[in-house]
């Protein structure tokens, strides 16, 4: 994207006032999307961004500047701004030798979305609309979205690293509204992978549409969710976001370093039930949160965070790792060239266990079964979290019975981790997610097997 001698001169300019570390991150991203609503293709949108972010670290301070001008003079000007912002006061380093990072991409792309005729993308939306409506007259509204992106990045720094990556993502989501005597209910389904248009060889949009429509229709007959603390069984795939929020964020080294995590200072301790092994894995081919190198040039890794209930390690980016004299765990990510990298998750999941899902259910006298959790948030300092339940059922006498209307689920991360008393053998990844932190969104994946949380979760329903 940028020639090596230019990169070297930009890094030299960034270090000209003295720097412990300087970095250039170049990004070129093309995105396209198409939206169907109310039976019509409402719009097609395409866009293009390109630019570079330059980071200079002096002691504990980071200076950062970005530019959309990728000419040498534009880059040098941004490098000088970043150097000034870092307020270094010393001599510049000389030109650094750059070593190419050889990281094999976990992703392979067969059909570049940019090569697919727009008409074919539109066709997917129309099919989904038709199939969702065909599920019954109760379906009164359907919206669907197709989106793809192609992101190319280059990272080079004064440690001598030079890495590139090519990241292609394809996504399809559908939302159906069902109307009945009890009002309107919404059902959703989405699929997104770090692959090309061949995504639709493995997934039929018709199936996604039927699933979304059935979720909405089922909820028409749903009763208000109960309220209070109860036993909760979480279904495979659909509940992974809970571990992302409830413990993943608390294991990010930047938050730990500021004392803003309940897991600070607890490495080596039992923090979860011995059934819990939690992994963050940027190498899971095709998943929404994977890549060859992170946005600091570090190859993706599979990191065990909690092993059999014992806290093994946090997740690290380059800055925090450097301060601790260790290496990054490949979790330095950023939304775009306009943002500073920080510690972020990739694909975060709980490993499967020995029980069958049927055994777990049969052994649960009463409680709530959550097939699908929606968005959520966590206060990492306290561990308190909240999630929406988008598909949930009552458990009565060891069986799933009536559907429940939407409600929130609240709990405390460390509390939930120690209250897991059954883990199933049916591991599945969940849908594509966007994780927000400090104003930046990055794509992430998550997954869980069926599991039971015996106490510590409160269902916030509206039933008296």
């Amino acid at each position: 994207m940028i020639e090596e001698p230019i990169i070297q001169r930009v890094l030299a300019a960034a270090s000209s006032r003295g720097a412990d570390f300087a970095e250039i991150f170049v990004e070129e991203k093309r995105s396209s999307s198409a939206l169907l609503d109310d039976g019509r293709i409402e719009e097609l949108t395409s866009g293009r961004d390109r630019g570079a972010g330059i980071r200079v670290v002096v002691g504990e301070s980071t200076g950062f500047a970005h530019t959309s001008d990728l000419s040498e003079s534009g880059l040098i000007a941004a490098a000088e701004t970043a150097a000034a912002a870092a307020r270094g006061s010393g001599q510049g380093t000389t030109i650094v030798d750059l070593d190419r990072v050889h990281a094999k991409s976990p992703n392979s792309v067969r059909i570049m979305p940019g090569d697919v005729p727009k008409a074919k993308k539109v066709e997917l939306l129309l099919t989904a609309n038709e199939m969702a409506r065909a599920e019954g007259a109760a379906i009164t509204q359907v919206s669907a979205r197709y989106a793809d992106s192609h992101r190319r990045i280059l990272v080079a720094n004064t440690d001598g690293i030079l890495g590139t990556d090519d990241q292609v993502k394809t996504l399809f989501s559908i939302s159906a509204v069902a109307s009945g005597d009890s009002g309107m209910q919404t059902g959703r389904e989405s699929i997104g992978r770090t692959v090309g248009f061949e995504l639709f060889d493995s997934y039929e949009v018709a199936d996604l549409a039927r699933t979304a429509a059935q979720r909405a229709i089922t909820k028409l007959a749903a009763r208000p969710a109960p309220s209070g603390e109860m036993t909760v069984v979480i279904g495979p795939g659909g509940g992974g976001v809970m571990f992302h929020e409830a413990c993943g964020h608390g294991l990010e080294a930047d938050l730990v370093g500021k004392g803003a995590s309940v897991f600070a200072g607890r490495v080596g301790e039992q923090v979860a039930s011995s059934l819990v092994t939690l992994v963050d894995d940027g190498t899971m081919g095709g998943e929404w949160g994977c890549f060859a190198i992170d946005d600091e040039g570090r190859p993706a890794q599979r990191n065990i965070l909690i092993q059999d209930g014992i806290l093994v390690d946090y997740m690290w980016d380059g800055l925090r790792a450097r301060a601790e004299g260790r290496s990054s765990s490949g979790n330095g990510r950023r939304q775009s060239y306009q943002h500073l990298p920080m510690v972020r998750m990739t694909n975060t999941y709980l490993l499967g266990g020995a029980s069958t899902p049927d055994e777990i259910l049969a052994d649960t006298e009463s409680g709530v079964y959550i097939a699908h959790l929606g968005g959520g948030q966590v206060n990492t300092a306290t561990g308190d979290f909240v999630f929406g339940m988008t598909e949930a059922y009552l458990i009565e006498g060891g069986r799933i019975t009536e559907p429940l209307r939407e409600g929130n689920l609240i709990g405390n991360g460390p509390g939930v981790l120690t209250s897991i008393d059954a883990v199933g053998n049916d591991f599945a990844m969940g849908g594509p997610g966007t994780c927000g932190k400090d104003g930046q969104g990055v794509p992430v994946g998550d997954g869980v097997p069926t599991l039971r949380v015996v106490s510590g979760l409160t269902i916030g329903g509206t039933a008296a």
Partner: protein
Amino acid sequence: MNPEELQQVADRIVAMAQPGEQVEAVVAWSRDTEVRAFEGQVEHFVSADSAGVGIRIINQGKQGLSWAGVLDDAALNECLAEARDNASFGSVDPHAGLAEPDGVVPDELVLYDERLLQADTEEKIRLAIELEAEVRKGDPRIFGIESADYADSVVSTAIASTTGIRRASAETSVYLGVYALAGDDDETTTGFGFSVGRSLQELDLEAAADEAVQRCVRLLGASKAPSERLTVVLHPYVTSQFLSLIAEMLSGESVIRGRSPFAGRVGEAIAAPEFTMFDDATDRLSPTASDTDGEGLACRAVPLIESGVLTGYLHNAYTARVSGTSSTGSAQRSSHRSAPGVGPHVIKLRPGQSSAEEIISQVGDGFLVYDIAGLHSGVNPVSGDLSVGADGIRIRGGELAEGIREVTIGSTLQRMLNDVVAVGSDLTYFPWESTGVTLAIADVTMSGQ
């Protein structure tokens, strides 16, 4: 770049329209500075300019969009060609069309403060460092600072279209914000405080620091409470989040798509008589005030609920056309990358007579809610079902009693609107599109133990 330069870029794009085509161009530029302090030092200092263009083309009822993060000629030409190509794949919509000038003259709001451009970088750094220090010394139980930030931006935008829309403007904004941690070995609480303005002179550092400290310490010792039905008293910060949601349900977009529980109910009583809600888009005291909407029409006051009766919805040009009415100047664009949606600028409730203290004393027995979590995951804007995580203080005998955390409150938004029993006099502005007052709502389910 100044607004005039951006206007020229927009004009140039519009001039390239082909016969039969409607073309709209939005061009934006911003210069942003951000300083984060930690332990008395600069943790990071960000300084950057960014620019972008968004082009919308409507041809024979079909719409296409394209955007670019660069403003050179090659990028503009590619962007226009892409938007044109995209339009050819849309469905024909007889209502599709750009906004047309409606004769409403925009209020000339002064949202640009020259003084920001003269502000000294060292002063910006000092503010972030001092904010952190103020919070740390605000209470001995404060043990950490997650972030202490100073940020400012200068934003210029211009819009032009083949229908005769042409408007450019600039505004400045300044922000100080801090997230703090308090507690001991047994518990941790968090709190934030902020101050916003158009220039450094408008910031109130002490108030932001004090707010963060108070938010942190007031819930130390709070615990889970038993489930019950009771009256909740919402802090203005919480009320503003509820009002944002109601405004979302009153957007023309939700209404025409059958996604609002309030569709087709104009003229009906949907809330208690104390409840009067409107969009006061041009109130300069609000950080989100605007004189022009995302399609270049004048912003104006929009009545929504009058003494409990639904009087209308928020509309952009498209949703108005579908509904057989005119735009209320409520087109909102989140950036140059998106098509204009519909949204409020400054949602307000008509304040009542009572102070927060008076309402707490009148309620006698209830739950003062300081904060809620999971509003977007916990509310179905279609059905109105609502359940959110909450913390606050139990009200007993008209006085504040024990702290409560890790509970949920639940109802439906429709029921809550009807169960409003008191509206406070304490109008409070926030850096998002909704203001707040203290608001008491009867008969809400609190779920805890």
